[in-house]
């Protein structure tokens, strides 16, 4: 089976529901299955990237830790919407994961290259 280009478009804040963690789990499995996986954090999804999370405080898995596993599963195409970061006052040094900020035009091009887009 050919590897597909699969983009995970993650737009949900980390603790509003289980969706953020579950979507990251799905991305990790896509990595295990050797697909060409990219991840784009956008809108409230960029909050998943913020350093210093401690899910244990509300008896939840720490989303930031799940997210940090992405590079270990050979998922290295990690992006964040530049506009979403700016709107929330987030700088790259505030983040727990190294991501490449993308302009809206770059996001448009990223989407065009995909076979499938999975949302959270």
């Amino acid at each position, binding site marked *: 089976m050919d590897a597909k280009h699969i*983009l995970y*478009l993650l*737009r949900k804040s980390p603790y509003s529901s289980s969706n953020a963690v579950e979507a990251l789990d799905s991305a990790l499995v896509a990595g295990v299955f050797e697909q060409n996986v990219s991840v784009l954090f*956008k*809108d409230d999804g960029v909050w998943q990237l913020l350093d210093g999370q401690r899910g244990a405080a509300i008896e939840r898995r720490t989303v930031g830790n799940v997210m940090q596993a992405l590079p270990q599963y050979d998922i290295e195409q990690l992006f964040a919407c530049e*506009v979403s970061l700016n709107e929330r006052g987030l700088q790259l040094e505030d983040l727990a994961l190294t991501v490449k900020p993308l302009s*809206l035009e770059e*996001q*448009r091009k990223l*989407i*065009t290259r*995909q*076979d*499938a*887009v999975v*949302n959270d």
Partner: protein
Amino acid sequence: MATLHLVNSQTALQSCLDVAADDDSVLLIEDGVYGATTDVARALLVLAPDVEARGLKDRIPSTAESIDYDQFVALVETHKPIVTWC
């Protein structure tokens, strides 16, 4: 191939429009159809049963094209990828 954007909430519409290319198609379904009741500066498609259920038939401008599920499938055939915004 052009992208099909599937929007099922009004709040997600702007995020979609920010990255949709001119030749992409934007289809509003479920509560996304409320997004067609306000002025949007691009061509939109709306899913007919979702418009009808919400009593919006007369409130959707003629610039938004109303389609059924068979036409929805035809759109999926001619677009890739399909991006869901919710």
